[in-house]
């Protein structure tokens, strides 16, 4: 079984069914997802998690708490915010409220993931694990990879992706925590910079319709002013306003 690189080579191939999927079993679909550990998304997430581990240590977190937080949140923006809130001595309720705002984005992402992984053969409780694995990296990869797959392989493929990404973000947290101070500011900055560039190029690579491309442009344009106007609610507002406009306008282009 040969392992071709992730199908990132071109827009045209993005929606083609990968060669491995023909006749693949469900365990094979899981393994094909798990390989993301050493592909671009996994490596970029690992680099971001290094930054989180270092931040957690700087903020006075124990290593065990930092790792536990990574596992139960599995969403770096929420983790960063919570660590920061504790470091500033915020009240637990205020911290929980701020964290809840960062979690809102997980709601529409989960809504649009679940229909893609629906299948009759898998036990229902597995979808709880699917929901836990919803985070930006896993969602972006899922949008790109799941539709071209036969329906019965999608759930296991996503669980493979999510499990590998959980390993990467946990390993990054541990290593970042232990190496803190050992990495220069330039390298740390370059690592942190990979995340937005990966998110955006993947969104563009995944976009299929006019609505997709408009949503990317509107989100980019609305994000910064709304961050200044409505901090905390900025992503939600940019998503709803930009996404709704893109959806409406996109229909005119069809």
């Amino acid at each position, binding site marked *: 079984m040969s392992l071709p690189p992730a199908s*990132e*080579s071109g827009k045209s191939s993005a929606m083609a069914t990968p060669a491995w999927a023909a006749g693949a079993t469900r365990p094979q679909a899981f393994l094909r997802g798990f390989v993301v550990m050493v592909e*671009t998304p996994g490596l970029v997430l690992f680099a971001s998690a290094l*930054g989180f581990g270092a931040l957690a240590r700087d903020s006075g*977190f*124990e290593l*065990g*708490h930092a790792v*536990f937080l990574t596992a*139960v949140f599995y969403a770096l923006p929420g983790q*960063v915010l*919570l660590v920061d809130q*504790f*470091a500033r001595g915020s009240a*637990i309720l205020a*911290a*929980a*409220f701020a964290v*809840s705002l960062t*979690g809102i*984005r997980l709601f*529409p992402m989960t*809504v649009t*993931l679940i*229909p893609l992984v629906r299948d009759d053969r898998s036990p229902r409780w597995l*979808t709880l694990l699917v929901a*836990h694995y919803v985070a930006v990296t896993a969602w972006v990869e899922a949008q790109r990879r799941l539709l071209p797959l036969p329906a019965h392989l999608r759930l296991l493929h996503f669980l493979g992706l999510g499990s590998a990404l959980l390993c990467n973000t946990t390993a990054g947290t541990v290593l970042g925590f232990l190496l803190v101070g050992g990495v220069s500011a*330039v*390298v740390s*900055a*370059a690592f*942190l*910079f*990979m995340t*937005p*560039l990966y*998110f*955006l*190029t993947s*969104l*563009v690579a995944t*976009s299929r319709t006019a*609505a*997709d491309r408009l*949503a990317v*442009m509107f*989100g*980019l344009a*609305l*994000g*910064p002013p*709304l961050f200044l106007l409505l901090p905390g609610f900025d*992503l*939600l507002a940019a*998503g709803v*306003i*930009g*996404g*709704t406009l*893109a959806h409406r306008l996109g229909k005119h282009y069809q």
Partner: protein
Amino acid sequence: MSALDDGFGGYLVLALIAALAHEPWRWAGLLIGRRIDAEGEVFQWVRAVSTALVAALVARLVLFPAGALDTVPIAIRVGAFACGLGFFLLTGRRVWAAVAFGATLLAAGKLLSG
């Protein structure tokens, strides 16, 4: 110093915050997602909302970053980002190459700017 209790108390607080403030958004998405059709109008709309939301997060991460990225001047961040995206669009849309190119430019810019 962290306001989080050492040991078990700290784990409990983190687990409670996750279960009461963070994870419920995923559970709510699960409940709604089970009821909608992947070909339908609602799905398309929510997908556009998610896409715009991630794009807004991208703009925020570049323009208002946390941590070490904050020490890089904004012109270098925006310039390296635009070059990374341009590289992506002009050279065959390889995500890994664009990410490596953009991050290298950012590091070079930071070093040259002192």
